[in-house]
């Protein structure tokens, strides 16, 4: 079902498509702690496999070129652009999406802080924002404001919730440091 048997040709901008038969590959990985196996072309990117094969639509398409951060997920605890991340690179790895952050319905402190600070408007960039921030707090639990800004810089929000997103991340970091919630 997933094979792309390209016969070679020219696209409308004139670039050549390689003549190649792409096979289905079996890829085993973990999604939000759940062992998962998919049969897909290993060059397909993680974003579309999450959204259309696994039904995890919290991960969003925003630009398709790794420029906006809406598709951010964690692979082995590192934030990556799932729109740029081929399936072959997630084999045997742990992937976390926004759906996997809350624990049995209990919001993560970052999610709670985003709600309490109104750190979102249309909400479309929010899953990427939350996971990008989460990756920061994993490696740097007590970031300075400047460190937060630097880390979040390439996640774009068009509604302009920036000031509240920074506040939410700082609040979550403080709470996690105090062990109020984990």
């Amino acid at each position, binding site marked *: *079902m997933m094979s792309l048997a390209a016969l070679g*040709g020219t696209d*409308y901008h004139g670039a050549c498509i390689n003549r190649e038969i792409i096979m289905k590959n079996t890829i085993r990985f973990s999604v939000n702690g759940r062992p998962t196996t998919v049969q897909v072309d290993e060059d397909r990117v993680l974003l*579309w496999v999450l959204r259309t094969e696994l039904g995890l*639509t919290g991960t969003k398409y925003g630009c398709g070129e790794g420029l906006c951060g809406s598709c951010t997920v964690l692979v082995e605890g590192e934030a990556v652009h799932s729109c740029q991340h081929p399936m072959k690179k997630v084999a045997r790895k742990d992937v976390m999406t926004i759906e996997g952050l809350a624990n049995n319905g209990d919001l993560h402190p970052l999610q709670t802080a985003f709600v309490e600070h109104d750190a979102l408007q*249309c909400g479309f960039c929010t899953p990427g924002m939350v996971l990008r921030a989460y990756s920061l707090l994993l490696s740097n639990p007590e970031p300075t404001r400047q460190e937060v800004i630097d880390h979040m810089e390439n996640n774009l929000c068009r509604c302009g919730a920036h000031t*509240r997103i920074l506040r939410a991340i700082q609040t979550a970091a403080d709470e996690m440091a105090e062990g109020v919630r984990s």
Partner: protein
Amino acid sequence: MTRYDSEIIPFLDLEPPSSVDRREFLRFLGGGVVVTFSAADLLALQATSRRRSFQELPDDFNAFLRIGEDGRVTCFTGKIEMGQGAFTSLAQMLADELEVSLDAVDMTMGDTDLCPWDMGTFGSMTTRFFGPPLRAAAAEAREVLIELAAERLEVPTDQLAVTNGVVYDTTDDNRKVSYSELTGGKKIARRLGRKAVLESVSDFTIVGQPLNRRDAVDKVTGSARYAGDIRRPGMLHARILRPPAHGARLVDADTTAVEGVEGAEVVHQGDLVAVLHEQPDIAERALQLVKARFATPKADVDNETIFDHLLEVAPPGETVSRGGNLDQGNQAAVSSVSRTYLDGYVAHAPIETHTALAEIADGKLTIWASTQRPFGLKAEAAEELGLPEDKVRVIPPFVGGGFGGKTANRQAIEAATLAKLTGKPVQVAWTRAEEFFFDTFRPAAVVKIDAGINDSARIAFWDYGTYFAGERGSEQFYDIPHHKTVAYSSSWRGTPGSHPFATGAWRAPGNNTNTFARESHIDILAAEAGMDPVEFRLHNLKDKRMQRVIQTAAERFGWTSAPSPSGRGHGVACGIDAGTYVAVMADVDVDETTGRVDVTRVVCAQDMGLVINPEGATTQVEGCIMMGLGYALAEEVRFTGGQILDTNFDTYEIPRFSWLPEIDTVLIDAQDSPPQGGGEPATIGVGAMIANAVFDAVGARVLRMPMTPKRIRQAVEEARQGPGSSRHG
């Protein structure tokens, strides 16, 4: 000219539905108490004469309110939620009028089968124009419930009060009955009487309270559904062959290579060439196999030559306002300055691209679409597919940002057309490049101002011409005896042959460009007078509301008097939009070598009448300021003829975290005046505020937006060459 003319009519391109059987709604609703009101009632409540243009509006239900048999309250509104917060603020209004807890209110938004006709969500109109009738409808429903309770408890209505959805006897709290007990087994429909007594502001317990968004939990967990998240059995994702430029014509297309892609379907009908697949990325790869040739017209205009072009093709001007006599004013002036201000095309660039899923089942078309105009789309889709309107249903899930751009529904028509041609549900989700290509940009525009001051630092005359920005925000509000404001193309859509691609409404349409020009020019006059920019404004204003917002902002900012350029980098601008008065002030750092401007602090004071949700309103102000930084400093669509050169966020830069200034918002307490718009006003002054702050910092005047580092460097260079060198720029 009223606000209705300037704001609503430009959106009414579409015809409202002529006759739809509204009784069908009642079938959906089941039991309980239902209140309806019509578009005509809405306008009557606004104490506005019914203008000719509105006689076409359907004289039937325009909104629904139901108190179900379980006591839960449902608001049915044609408005949509795109981040502006109506999902929360409308529920707040309902909860207050009905005296139920906010948790008891459900919102059903934009579904054209469930919600009555609405022109769309734009123009900061939801709270202003939809709010009052919604409150009145709630008050009406409350009266019905009180009457029912009076019968049930056998006490007169004036002896009853309501708390948290329970009606009780004020002489004996033990005698009480809940809304659900009253509505159970009942089916009561009331049309809104116009004289419903509204709760007074002092009785509000929920309105005016800062509240977190009610959609926030769904949005932080990834469970909120947007159009692209809807799944239907057997659905296909479509990728459509696009021309390289606007105006390009498809000569031929060879799709034979796509046949080798398992599961791919091709639609080729006339100019429409699409590849469909169960997986969107495979559809994209298969589309790359299509060989096509386009005939592209020669480019005759680009992002630099556009301004001359616009001035050449400008239609005759329409006078927006005038007073006194310009010649007389000119003679009274001791000093006058003439300037031309330029503004480029700006993209809406919502993070969610235009997306829609269309399905035809049993002869009925359903479209889940990211749209600000679900009812407009319903009519457009019916016409395009040749269906009666009652065979089309539009359901807008959460919309991932609109800003005016999602008033255009092209992607949904594409999805509907492909659903019809393939017989399967089809999703069209634009790529970022498609979003930049088909966006209805904020128009490039030119503003020419000639104005002068007399020997007591009063503005003696004001001669203002706005070309293609649109007339919103062009009218000046200073105390000027001799003035004239003329709009050359009063619509942001332009005139035939003016723009090389589609333009449209962009957050506070027209007003950003007009306020940039007006408030820059006011600062230039202040400098001519040798007067502090805030003092000069107050000196030339009689409007008390405007004086108050400026004074409030100045106080919070800690503005101290100094004529510009003072070297401090302080700037001010003010304006009126969607009924709201706003003043903004900034502190900027300018690097004269690189031309980089860093906005470190912004204060915004806003008088928007009664504030429904202060938290939501403050959030909107912050969003307006951030979005304003983009159009003021960086955003400009580059193009050659019909070819759009910016295709993604690498070259089209929108504001980032590092741009964030400290933002301080003051909402002026104006509880006694009706609520005004909040989603747009605070963005209008950002351009002039920064231009004025740059001038204050380094004495260089920038007359063109966006104020890119290159343009700042040029202005600094011109300023160094001596006073007067940029005088007639």
